[in-house]
């Protein structure tokens, strides 16, 4: 069961969150807009990784199509904006509704299956979304869609500037972390974790696990969709490419290097992934080779991810 993290690693995590909270001030002070950009992207992808971890790490549902919800969320900003609708509340509610609906339908089919089938079906459904947007000439098809202005919110919570957008992202991150923290410790969370270890046993204890897993899948999709709304606002250019299934592979990679089934792990997995990508791509254009090799080595030789290394601090 999700063991309570030791006090020392909790301190490390809280310290990191504090640093993330004051990061824009540091970057402004040192005049590093690029770093703020990188960190904003990292946190958005981090939220997506956290949402994937909810089903993958805690629930044992290996979805290879999670990035579809990131894309749906982004298009829920892009398509209204294309029709000059910039109201942020509309964007948010549209994203929540669309992601929940799509997750409900595809989840209902996918969760009837197990193992290999589930992995491939989630991948196929996300590829379906990818091809649909690829074929929608109206919304740019493979050329993508430019979003000319950010979602509009009341003035005290607008996301116009880079810093205010950052705090939107940071806010959603904190909410997501807190929500998942509560969720996995609730009765609902126990059922999800139990069904990861032994689904049959959970059924024999009287839990209709299908319903719980489907609910969890939908929740996870909605969180990822919200991250997508922020991603759309952040990049101001969206294209089907962001939903290619290889992106879902990267997302799983982040969850694993961070530590599946740990609260903070996937966030730091995502950050490490993106910073490593930036750093390696400065050194060599063949950074994919190093990444791929790393991934293979990680599975063949080392288990547990960053979270496991951090929790060794407690010993």
């Amino acid at each position, binding site marked *: 069961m999700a063991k309570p993290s030791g006090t020392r690693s909790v301190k490390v995590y809280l310290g990191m969150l504090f640093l993330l909270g004051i990061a824009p001030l540091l970057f402004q002070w040192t005049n590093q807009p690029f770093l703020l950009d990188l960190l904003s992207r990292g946190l958005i992808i981090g939220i997506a990784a956290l949402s994937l971890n909810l089903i993958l790490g805690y629930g044992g549902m290996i979805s290879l199509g999670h990035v579809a919800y990131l894309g749906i969320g982004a298009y829920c900003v892009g398509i209204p904006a294309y029709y000059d609708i910039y109201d942020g509340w509309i964007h948010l509610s549209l994203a929540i509704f669309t992601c929940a609906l799509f997750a409900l339908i595809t989840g209902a089919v996918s969760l009837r299956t197990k193992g290999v089938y589930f992995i491939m*079906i989630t991948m196929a*459904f996300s590829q379906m979304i990818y*091809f649909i947007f690829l074929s929608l000439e109206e919304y740019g098809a493979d050329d993508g869609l430019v979003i000319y202005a950010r979602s509009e919110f009341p003035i005290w919570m607008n996301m116009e500037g880079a810093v205010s957008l950052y705090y939107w992202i940071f806010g959603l991150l904190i909410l997501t972390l807190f929500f998942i923290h509560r969720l996995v410790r609730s009765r609902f969370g126990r059922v999800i974790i139990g069904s990861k270890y032994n689904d049959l046993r959970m059924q024999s204890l009287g839990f209709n696990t299908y319903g719980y897993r489907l609910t969890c899948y939908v929740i996870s999709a909605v969180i990822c969709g919200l991250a997508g709304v922020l991603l759309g606002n952040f990049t101001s250019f969206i294209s089907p490419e962001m939903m290619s299934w290889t992106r879902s*592979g990267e997302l799983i990679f982040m969850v694993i290097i961070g530590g599946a089934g740990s609260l903070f792990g996937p966030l730091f997995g995502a950050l490490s992934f993106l910073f490593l990508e930036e750093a390696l791509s400065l050194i060599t254009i063949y950074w994919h*080779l190093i990444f791929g090799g790393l*991934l293979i080595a990680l599975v063949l030789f080392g288990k547990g991810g960053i979270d496991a290394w951090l929790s060794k601090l407690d010993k």
Partner: protein
Amino acid sequence: MDWNLLISQLVNSIQLGLLLFLLASGLTLIFGIMDFINLSHGSFYMMGAYFCGSIVAATGSFFAGIIVGLVGIFFLGALVEWLIARQLYKENHLDHVLVTFGLILVFDALVHIIWGPSGLSIPLPDFLNGQIQLGSLVFPIYRLVIISGGLAVAGILYLLISRTRLGMLIRAGASNRDMVESLGININRLFLFVFALGAAMAGFAGMLIAPITEATIGMGNDIIIIAFVVVIVGGIGSIKGAFYVALMIGFIDTMSRSYLDDFLELLASTAAAETAAPAISAMLVYVLMAVVLAFKPTGLFPPTAGNR
């Protein structure tokens, strides 16, 4: 109705179906027998195209490219099995996903390093480049070559699986792995062979298509997903299922792309039909998969198991 167009689309759909079969048959065997998810199966498709292209460039002979390329991919597949896949059969599926995803990155990067970022085109010999006239119909000869090549491999595979002792072991392995192990067969060698055979068939598909599309980095990453759909709908481990479903999906995909807008125009305005048709045809294959799975969660042709 333009009959010439219809027939040429029919030929295209068979061509796509057979390419899908070449990819899916290897995948389904590797799934069924080793219970191993190989996301990087599409990399063999890509490597096949590049191998073939290099050899054609060096020797000037297309057939040398195919033959030597096939041998090369067979050994590449064996190498991947021996070095990596074999370590993972007993691990969970998540590990398979991670490692084979890593393999995709490695292969894509290697191609980038060796052949550069731009594609590699494969010139066809003149006698394959022409067109053939049957009545009022005109076919590119090479498309017919692809189709006969695909059919030939399907035929050989069928004979191998249904008539030989090796094929019997493969069939037994796909429906009941424990039985093969209990027969005292050298299971490692069987796995190695199946993996390399699957790789070679995927590579062959890549070689066949490359003269039309040219070899590009990541060329396998999209088609492999449809091959996965074929495997799921056909039933994991079933060659027969892979064959029928590959042809069916090739047909549905090709036909809906070319005719769905005409069909929709009967129901809605031209503008609406032209917007909706591509999106709907992009979905069709996946909707088919969802419908099949909703009724038959193990696919249309699950390999018959002796023990259940």
